[in-house]
């Protein structure tokens, strides 16, 4: 079964609406050729260098593929990553990768989930932000067993704890490693 981009965007915007962050009202899906910068707000775009750190105001946006390399960009709250994974699983997506980004200036960690569809050209990015001093997020490894390693790796590099993960021992770092090298404040 191959879902259409519109259906997916619709499904995710509903997810965002039902579980939206309280401060934010449900937002329409922005479509079409978004500006080259990731954020839709003109102010942020003008600001340039500080653009990326702020969370995109529009949680679900379709993106022009040639510009960014993916089709759908969804920002959700950390609680919803499992739900999002389930939706994508039902739609036949496969997990591409999971990674973190350490936004030290905002004192936040971003966790990015990339998905691709094995049967069609559809790339979905799910992103969420967690607090940097207590980075914890539910695991999606029950939905995608392949997430197990990706989450372990993210834990290695960023110290993000995936609650419910079966085994968070270092994967790529030595077994006794207690450092998280990709944090921006890491020193060897």
């Amino acid at each position, binding site marked *: 079964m191959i879902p259409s981009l519109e259906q997916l965007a619709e499904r995710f915007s509903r997810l965002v609406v039902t579980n939206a962050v309280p401060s934010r009202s449900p937002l329409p899906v922005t479509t079409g050729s978004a500006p080259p910068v990731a954020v839709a707000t003109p102010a942020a775009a003008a600001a340039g260098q500080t653009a990326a750190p702020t969370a995109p105001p529009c949680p679900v946006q379709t993106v022009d593929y040639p510009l960014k390399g993916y089709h759908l960009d969804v920002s959700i709250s950390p609680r919803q990553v499992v739900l999002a994974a389930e939706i994508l699983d039902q739609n036949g997506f496969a997990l591409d990768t999971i990674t973190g980004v350490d936004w030290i200036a905002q004192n936040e960690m971003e966790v990015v989930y990339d998905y691709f569809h094995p049967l069609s050209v559809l790339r979905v990015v799910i992103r969420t932000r967690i607090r940097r001093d207590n980075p914890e997020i539910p695991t999606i490894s029950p939905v995608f067993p392949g997430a197990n390693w990706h989450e372990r790796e993210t834990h290695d590099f960023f110290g993000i704890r995936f609650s419910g993960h079966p085994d968070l021992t270092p994967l790529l*770092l*030595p*077994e006794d490693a207690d*450092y998280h*090298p990709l944090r921006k404040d*890491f*020193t*060897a």
Partner: protein
Amino acid sequence: METPVDTSQIVQFAALDDLLALSRANSLWPLTFGLACCAIEMMAAGGPRFDISRFGAEVFRPSPRQADVMIVAGTINKKMAPAVKTLYDQMLEPKWVIAMGNCAISGGPFVFPGQYAVVEGVDKLFPVDVYIPGCPPRPEALIEGILALEQKLTGKRRWPVVKPPQ
């Protein structure tokens, strides 16, 4: 009166030593041990184009007990270092080490201030006999390394020296 006999014996031992050194130099069995990029060039050196077997060095032994020379071909990181050390210890005397490629010599391009993973040179773990620089070195360089090891063992070079073209 007895001295001449003694000298002759010494001379004979020296000849025997030379013979042994020559034998060892012509029968360097490497350990099957590839780490990264350089390992592919090591395989290529065993390939038909370069054919390391001409020097009797194609008998790649997977067990360190039977290997004479360890060709460290690639980066050693801190997780791997104890294992490499164990392998070196499991090899029997006399044994030699060839550090192939920049990573094995000094950590290569993966060294930067504040790095956390790479061992900066295999000679930090155990003595190295021959260094072959390059990223990765060409198979000829590996053959040259084998010849350099032979030169180190026997004290002379039996092969012509190849000058690189300008």
